[in-house]
């Protein structure tokens, strides 16, 4: 475990939160997209995407050390990683009455994406705050190392 272990962990979290932010940007940008995918010759609206995170596994030596009960890095994690970006197939599309729309059906209804801007805003705040929290952790980590360098001054 190097002295920069904590920093690497924080870096992985920052990367994950950035990706969350990118996915939210995509959802917000596609709030009116009716032609995201061509299914059986018909255009389907954009589906809301969401990010799934999972803890980052270590390398082989980590596993070996943990299995053998070495005191070093026994339960210290290695960070986080994005396991999946999946589409929300649960929430139905919003049906909007707009006969002039190019993708309207015979009755004049258009299937709009299942993106809820309010939900996206909440996720946005969550991602921003998590990012900030991780930056704070990084700064605390750095302050600790800098303090250690003052030992014996």
């Amino acid at each position, binding site marked *: 475990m190097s002295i*920069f272990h904590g920093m690497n962990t924080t870096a992985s979290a920052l*990367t994950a939160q*950035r990706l969350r932010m990118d996915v939210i940007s995509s959802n917000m940008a596609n709030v009116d997209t009716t032609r995201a995918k061509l299914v059986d010759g018909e255009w389907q609206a954009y589906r809301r995407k969401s990010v799934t995170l999972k803890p980052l596994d270590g390398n082989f030596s980590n596993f070996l050390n943990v299995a*053998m009960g070495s005191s070093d890095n026994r339960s210290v994690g290695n960070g986080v990683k994005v396991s999946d970006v999946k589409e929300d197939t649960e929430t139905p599309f919003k049906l909007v009455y707009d006969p002039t729309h190019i993708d309207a059906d015979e009755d004049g209804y258009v299937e709009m994406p299942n993106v809820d801007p309010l939900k996206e805003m909440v996720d946005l705040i969550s991602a921003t705050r998590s990012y900030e929290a991780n930056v704070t952790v990084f700064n605390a980590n750095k302050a600790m190392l800098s303090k250690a*360098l003052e030992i014996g001054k």
Partner: protein
Amino acid sequence: MAIESVSLFNPSQINPVSTTSKLSPSEAQADFGDFLKTAIQSVNESQKASDVATEKLINGGNIELHDVMIASQKSSISLNATLEIRNKVVEAYQEIMRMQV
């Protein structure tokens, strides 16, 4: 012929055992020189990594801003640690030179 069973061995058996043999002053000096050299090299490596990351960022490469910042902070801490050690070494040298003969 009896075959001994394979037992799970301790990590301490894998880890290098500290050498108990005594070093001559010249050997100790060479060891210290090597150690210092590798330490300074690793600091240089981190500086280089930071430089590469910065260049990649300004050239519009596929790298996150925080990764660049973290690389620069890591190299800064490594450099500060090196400076701290250098100060101690110079201090020790001066202490020796101040000895009355």
